[in-house]
C-alpha cells in the first residue's frame, strides 16, 4: 500500500529532525566555546606580556588602604581579604537597613495612594512619580552633594526633635544601648521570638489536623510579649538606656552616628525603593477583587477581620514576589555608593584593583558575590512561589 511505502521510505539526512537538532547543538556549542577560547587565548597572551598574576595569593597581603567606615574591625595593615569582607559587610548593612525602612515607607505610601482621601492619595502619587522618574544616581547626588555636604559645621548643628543633630560630620541619633543587665533582656527577646514561632507552627498544625480552634495567633502573640516582659523584670526594669548625642569639645559623643555618606546612601536608596514598593503594594491590594470584600462583609465579618483574613492574605500572595525582587534591586543598587564615597563591596573592589593591580581576580570575586546574593534571593522566591501557588481545579 502507498502509506506503507511512505513509512519505509528513508528520510534524507538534512530533513531528519534528530540529525538537525544534534547539528544545531554541536554548531552552537562550537561557536560559543570558540569565542570563549579565543578570548581566553588573547587574555593569557596579554597577561603573559604584562606579567600580570592571576592567583588569589594577594588576598593575604596587607591591603594598605583605609576604609572610612566599617562594621567589623579593620585597619590598613590587615589583608586584602579582610578589606573585601569589610566591604561586603558594609553592603549588607546598608542593604538590610534599606530593606527594613523601604518596606515600612513603601507600605505607608502604597496605602496612602489607595486612601479614599483625594489629597492624601495625590501626595502619595507625587512622592511616587518624583522618585520613579529620576535616576537613582541623580537622587544620590542630590542627597549627598546637595544636602549632606552642605550642612553646617559641628558647632552650628541643625537640631531636629529626638534629639537628632545634623552637621558636616553626619547624622547623630538618640539610640538605645544595652545596660549592664541588658543581656538578660536580649536573651529573653530572642527566646520569645523562637518560642512564639514554635507555638505558631505547632498549634497551626494541630488545628489543621483536628479542625479545633487552637488560637495560634493569640497564643504566639502572648508568648512574644510575655517572655521579653519577664526578661525586662529580671534585668531590673532598665535593660536599655537611651543615649543622646552630646556636644563635647569639637564633636558629638554618644548616640548613634551615621556618616554623611552612609546617611545619604540610606536616604536615597530607601526612598527610591519605597516608591517602587508603594506601587507593588497598591497593585497587590487592587488585585483582590471587590467581590471578596463584599462577600466577606455579607457573611458578617467585621472590618478588621475582612482585612486580616480576606484582603491581606490574598494581597500578600501578589505583593511578595515583586517585593523580594525590589529588595534584590536595592542590594544591587547599593553599588552606586561608589559615586558618593561610601565604601561598600564594589568600591572596595575598585580600590583593590588599583592597589593590588589584579583586575580580573578581584572582578570575578565582586561579581560572583553579587551573583550569589541574587541567586540565593531567586531561590527563596522560587520556593515561596511554589508554596503559595493556588491549587486550581
Amino acid at each position, binding site marked *: 500500500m502507498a502509506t506503507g511505502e511512505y513509512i519505509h521510505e528513508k528520510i534524507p539526512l538534512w530533513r531528519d529532525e534528530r540529525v538537525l*537538532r544534534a547539528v*544545531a*547543538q554541536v554548531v*552552537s*556549542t562550537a561557536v*560559543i566555546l570558540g569565542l570563549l577560547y579565543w*578570548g*581566553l587565548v*588573547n*587574555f593569557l*597572551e*596579554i*597577561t603573559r*606580556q604584562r606579567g600580570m598574576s592571576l592567583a588569589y595569593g594577594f588576598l593575604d597581603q596587607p591591603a594598605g588602604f583605609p576604609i572610612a567606615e566599617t562594621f567589623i574591625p579593620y585597619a590598613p595593615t590587615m589583608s586584602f581579604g579582610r578589606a573585601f569582607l569589610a566591604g561586603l559587610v558594609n553592603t549588607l548593612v546598608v542593604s538590610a537597613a534599606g530593606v527594613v525602612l523601604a518596606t515600612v515607607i513603601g507600605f505607608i505610601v502604597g496605602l496612602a495612594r489607595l*486612601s*479614599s*482621601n*483625594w*489629597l*492624601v492619595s495625590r*501626595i502619595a502619587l507625587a512622592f511616587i*512619580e*518624583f522618585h*520613579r*522618574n*529620576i*535616576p*537613582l*544616581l*541623580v*537622587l544620590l*547626588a*542630590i542627597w549627598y*552633594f*546637595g*544636602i549632606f*555636604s*552642605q550642612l553646617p559645621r559641628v558647632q552650628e548643628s541643625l537640631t531636629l526633635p529626638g534629639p537628632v543633630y545634623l552637621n558636616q560630620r553626619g547624622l547623630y541619633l538618640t539610640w538605645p544601648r544595652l545596660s549592664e543587665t541588658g543581656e538578660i533582656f536580649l536573651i529573653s527577646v530572642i527566646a520569645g521570638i523562637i518560642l512564639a514561632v514554635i507555638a505558631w507552627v505547632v498549634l497551626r498544625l494541630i488545628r489543621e489536623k483536628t479542625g479545633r480552634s487552637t488560637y495560634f495567633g493569640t497564643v504566639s502573640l502572648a508568648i512574644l510579649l510575655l517572655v521579653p516582659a519577664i526578661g525586662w523584670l529580671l534585668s531590673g526594669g532598665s535593660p536599655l538606656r537611651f543615649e543622646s548625642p552630646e556636644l563635647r569639645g569639637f564633636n558629638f559623643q554618644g548616640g548613634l552616628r551615621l556618616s554623611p555618606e552612609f546617611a545619604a546612601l540610606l536616604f536615597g536608596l530607601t526612598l527610591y525603593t519605597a516608591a517602587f514598593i508603594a506601587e507593588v503594594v497598591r497593585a497587590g491590594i487592587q488585585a483582590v477583587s471587590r467581590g471578596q470584600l463584599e462577600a466577606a462583609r455579607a457573611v458578617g465579618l467585621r472590618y478588621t477581620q475582612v482585612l486580616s483574613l480576606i484582603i491581606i492574605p490574598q494581597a500578600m500572595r501578589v505583593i511578595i514576589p515583586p517585593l523580594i525582587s525590589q529588595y534584590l534591586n536595592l542590594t*544591587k*543598587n547599593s*553599588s*552606586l555608593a*561608589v*559615586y558618593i564615597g561610601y565604601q561598600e563591596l*564594589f568600591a572596595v573592589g*575598585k580600590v583593590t*584593583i588599583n592597589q593590588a593591580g589584579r*583586575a*580580573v581576580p578581584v*572582578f570575578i570575586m*565582586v*561579581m560572583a558575590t*553579587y*551573583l550569589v*546574593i*541574587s*541567586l540565593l534571593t*531567586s531561590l527563596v522566591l522560587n520556593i515561596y512561589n511554589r508554596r503559595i501557588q493556588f491549587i486550581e481545579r
Partner: protein
Amino acid sequence: MATTTDMLSPPAAPSPIEWLRKNLFGDIFNALLTIVSLAFILFALVAMARWVFFTADWRPVTVAPLLYLVGQYPRGEIWRPGLSLLVSTFLLGMSWGVWERYVKAFAIFIGALLGILALIPLEAASITLAVRAAFLANPILIYLGYRIGRLPAVSGRHVFMLWLVASVLITLVLLPGIQGVPDLPKIATTAWGGLMVTLLLAVGGIVLSFPIGVFLALGRRSSLPVVKLFCIAFIEAVRGVPLVTLLFMFSIMLTLFLPPQARIDRLVRALIAMVLFSAAYTAENVRGGLQAIPPGQVEAAKAVGLNNFQITTFIVLPQALRLVIPTIVGQFISLFKDTTLVVIVGINDLLGIGNAVLNLNPEFVRLQMEVYLFIAAIFWVFSYFMSYASQQLERALGVGER
C-alpha cells in the same frame, strides 16, 4: 418610555460640593487628614517656590546651556548634532503619519518640548538665533513629516528603511566625522557629552539590545538543551550583577580579552555593556510575551504545515512582540535613567557635565543642589512623559482587550 431612559442614562457627574464632601470631608478623620495635607502642600509649595525663584542661584546652569546638550562638542561643528536632531524629528513625524496612534503621543511630546526650549527667555552668548531657529524648526518638521507620512505612497517599510539609513549615517558618519575630510573633521568621543550622549546610549542600547534579547528569549525556550543552557546562564548572570560592575568590567577589562592591537572607543565599550545588560532584561520581557501566546496557535500553525522557523517568525513572534511593546517602552525609560551610571567610568553624560561644571568653577561649590535638581528635572520630564506616552500606546495597542 421616560422612566426607562432615566434608568439607562449614566448617573450625572457629581457637583463640586458633592465631590468635595465625598472625597475630602467624608468623616471627621478624613476632614482632619484633608486639613493637615492641605497645610503640608501649601507649606511645601511656598518653600519650593521661594527657593526656586529667590534663594537658588542658577548660574551654573545658565552660564553654559549648550554644555548640557552636547558637552564639549566643538562649537564650530555644532550643526552636526543639530542636523541629527532635525533629521530624527522629521522621521519621528513621518512615523506618526504612518503608524498613527502608536507614535502620536511621543511625536507631540518631543515637538512641544523642543518648541518650548526654543522660546525659553534665556540670555547666553552660546544661544544664538541660529540655535533657537534650529530648535523651533523641530515641531514644524514633525508636522511636515506627519503630512508626508500620511501620503498613501509612503508605507511603514519606507519609514523603517529611512530610520535605518539615518541612524547609521548619524552615528557612524555625521557625529564622529571622517579622518581627512576637511568639511567633516573627526571629533573624538571624549568631546561628546551631555544629553546627546545620554540619548545616544539609551536609544542605541535599547535598539541594539532588542534583536539580541529576542534571540535569547527564543533560545531560553528552545528544546535544544545546550542552547537553552547557554541562554539561561547568560541571562541570569547578567541580571544577577549590578550594571556598574558590567560597565566597569567592559571599560577596563574588555581590552584584555581582545587581540592586543584591537582598540575600542570607550563610549562604544560603555554601549556594549548597556546593550548586554539591556538584552538580558529584554529577553525576560519577550519571554513573558512568548508565554502568553496560547499553544493552540502553534498547534494550528503546525497543522497547516508550517515548519518551526515559519511558526516562530510568522505566527508566534509578531503576536508576542505586540504584547511586550509597552514593557519594552518601560525598559527604555529605565535604561534612559541607567545611562547616568556611565559617569562612574568617566563618560561625560548629562550628570558628568553637571559634575564638570561644578568642579571647574570654585565659585559654584555651594551650588550643587541647583545643578543636580536641574538634571533631575530634565530626567523627570523625559521619563514622565515617556511613561504617559506609553500608556497611550498601550491603549492604541489594545493590550488586555484582545
